[in-house]
């Protein structure tokens, strides 16, 4: 690994004829938000890469510490705004654990179904933006066309499209739309016909393979050292998936596979995400088949005031990896400390290991393949 150099001064590196420093971002079309990477390039080859984060820092953790537990949920939505609904779950689980709330079966299934639906929506955004990074414009519009249908389903049930604020302590905030399950089944039927189309345009396309195979190799040990999780870790051959390893909600009752790919490169990460489409569809279908038709969605809740000194860490597997919440109670209705462990932040730490030595074009392909959301990196 290259030693961290002073990114603001142009230093002569031994053996390099000429090195040019380029600011990749914060206003650059391929950084998916406001990431800035200072790239040293020698011709087209990247010699060093220093990510600068914090442009989207909104102080979520401190804001949550001065608000009551139920007021915290909308803040979590705004971390990973691409799959907003998934972010609410770890906070809910942690508070439920602290207070000993038993979640009704029906709510567990509703959560699981919407959680996986959000994963499909999030991976669709990834396909679109990644192909845009690689220079293909059409898959972006196809992906957003289909994602729109998911957002419609979420909107009908939760009232909002991106930041739904729907999960709550003990279940879901209100019962779902009467036609939600039928809508979802109808969507899945439509989406399954579109999946081969996506594959033909992306992972089966020879130009895509030429751009991604062997590019941005993330060594499994390096990935573990940096705390990389999610499809990026599974793309490096490590079968770590919290839905299996620490199951929550209705995941113990459904049968699915952990999508592990052994290539460790951008292509493996892409394939891992693509296989997750099929697994998500499988999970949703099973959950809908097992779904208990009757029953409450919310139990009788105690006062949201955990005992002083109780602390709890709960993590879930969102689209990008392991999103965790660590809460410490001081006996009031506000958390004494709220800490979020976000997957993209950890993934970004492995950026330099993947960037250095690659081509400038590859750098863009790598940055797209790890699928970061800056709202969640900076929090």
């Amino acid at each position, binding site marked *: 690994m290259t030693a961290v150099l002073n990114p603001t001064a142009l230093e002569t590196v031994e053996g390099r004829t000429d090195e*040019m420093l380029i600011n990749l971002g914060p206003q650059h*079309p391929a950084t998916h938000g406001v990431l800035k990477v200072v790239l040293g390039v020698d011709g087209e080859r990247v010699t060093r890469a220093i990510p600068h984060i914090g442009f989207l820092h909104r102080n979520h953790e401190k804001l949550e510490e001065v608000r009551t537990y139920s007021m915290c949920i909308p803040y979590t939505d705004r971390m990973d705004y691409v799959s907003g609904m998934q972010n609410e779950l770890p906070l809910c689980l942690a508070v439920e654990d602290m207070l000993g709330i038993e979640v009704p079966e029906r709510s567990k299934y509703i959560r699981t179904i919407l959680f996986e639906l959000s994963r499909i929506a999030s991976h669709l955004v990834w396909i679109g933006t990644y192909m845009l990074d690689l220079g293909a414009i059409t898959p972006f519009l196809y992906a957003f066309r289909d994602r729109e249908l998911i957002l*419609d389903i979420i909107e009908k049930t939760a009232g909002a499209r991106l930041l739904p604020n729907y999960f709550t302590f003990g279940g879901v905030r209100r019962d779902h739309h009467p036609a939600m399950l039928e809508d979802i089944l109808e969507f899945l039927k439509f989406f399954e016909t579109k999946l081969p189309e996506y594959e033909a345009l992306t992972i089966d396309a020879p130009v895509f393979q030429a751009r991604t195979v062997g590019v941005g190799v993330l060594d499994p040990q390096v990935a573990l050292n940096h705390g990389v999780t999610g499809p990026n870790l599974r793309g490096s051959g490590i079968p770590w998936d919290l839905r299996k390893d620490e199951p929550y909600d209705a995941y113990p009752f459904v049968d699915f*596979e952990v999508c592990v790919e052994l290539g460790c490169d951008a292509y*493996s990460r892409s394939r891992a995400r693509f296989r997750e489409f099929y697994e998500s569809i499988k999970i949703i279908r099973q959950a809908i088949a097992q779904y*208990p038709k009757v029953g409450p969605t919310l139990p009788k809740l105690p006062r949201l005031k955990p005992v002083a000194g109780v602390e709890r860490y709960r993590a879930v597997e969102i689209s990008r990896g392991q999103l965790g919440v660590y809460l410490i109670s001081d006996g009031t209705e506000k958390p004494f400390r709220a800490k979020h462990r976000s997957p993209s932040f950890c993934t970004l730490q492995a950026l330099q290991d993947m960037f250095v030595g690659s081509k400038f074009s590859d750098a863009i392909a790598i940055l797209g393949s790890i699928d970061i959301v800056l709202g969640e990196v900076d929090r």
Partner: protein
Amino acid sequence: MSLYENKEPRMPLERVAIPENKHFKLRNKYHPLLNNHNPKGNLLSAIFGYVSLFGTTLLVLALTYQGLPALLEVLGAAKNSFWYNLVYGLLGPVLMFLFVAVVALINILMLRKYLAKVQNRYGPLHHGPAGVLQTVFDALKLVSKEDFSPGMVEETIFTLAPVIVFVSAFIMIAVMPFAPGWVFSNVDSGALFIIAAGTLGGYGVLLAGWSMNNKYGLMGGLRAAAQLVSYEVPLSIALLSVVVYNGSMNLTDIVQAQSTVWNVFPLFIPFVIYLIAGLAEIKMTPFDLPEAESELVAGFNTEYGGMRFGFFFVAEFAELYLLPAILAIFFLGGWHAPSIPIPYIGELVIHTTAPNPANASSILGLLQTMFAPGGIGQNLQYAFWSLLKAAAGVYFYMWIRATLPRFRDDQLMELCWKGLIPLSMIGLLLAAVSRLYPAVGQILSYVTAIPLLLFIVSRAFGLKLPSPKKELA
């Protein structure tokens, strides 16, 4: 994996059969797939587009090549006299600029509509009926913007670069025949002129990238220089094969030689090489590295705005049109109609009425002279075929643009130096053989062409060939 053995469900499962709801539709008011895709507006814009594209360009061509000379002769300037050459030399290019502008404007509109159709969008919709005036407004906006250049640029070169790019694309028209006799200068080194003019554009791009003092611009300019210089070689060799086969550098002669068999059949390999290298020459996906917007922001035109950018933009679309036009001249028979015998409409006028010298001044007589073989009527029909072939090429390129991602720079170079250049040498050799022994050459061409075509399609679009697919992961 033993770690992930299925856990037994903890609760009794009651499978609920959810009734199939036949009446349910995915409700999305704006979804183009599920909504009626404004078919009336689409049809309107398509009819407007095609009629105006062919009508206007044919009109301009007829004005340039027949109207203006006829007018000058009526005014008393004999052909090739000093005054004739002076006035025609000044006014002709103006008319041709009009031609390029019209082609670029309408092409941009039609291609945006086409791309939108591919991508499940509406495309331009709001200016004029069904959005047909969109590009006119775009052009007006570009022209009315401030002529601005940033402080740190090398002013002279920065101003000169878009002009070089535009002119290099524009001057190709000088030697391009649209119909018999419809050409500005019927020079004997037309093929050489086309190659030279195409090469000139690379200078403009390189100078633009260097002069703007921007790191992304510099990288774009260097990439463009490397790409254009490399792809000039197979492109030129492909054109050279045609020259060898037809035995002439004069474009009119080349087209005349294809009156029975188009060059695409005996010279299939150069044809394919020209198609691919042409994509690189006009810097379009999958070879759009110089202006890769996700990598280099805008590449060599990052710092340009207003009409300075407009020159790059118009030059890009002019080239997008002129390259298939050259392709049509060299390989697709130029102005010749496809070998299906299509009757010449003018004959109807000639044969239904017997030519009568007394009628010479009447409308009928005028029609007879117009539609006589070699007259303006037949030339218009010829020009229509030239334009149609060029337009088909444009749509082919646009289809590729809508489908493929872009290559990396080393892959681009590898494709050129290891793939296209050796192949183009083979193509040149086959062209020479075809010239000497036509039958042997044609058989060899077909034998090599079919595997080549299959290979290219399978590599570019992932067509599943019978051979087992390599497992990658």
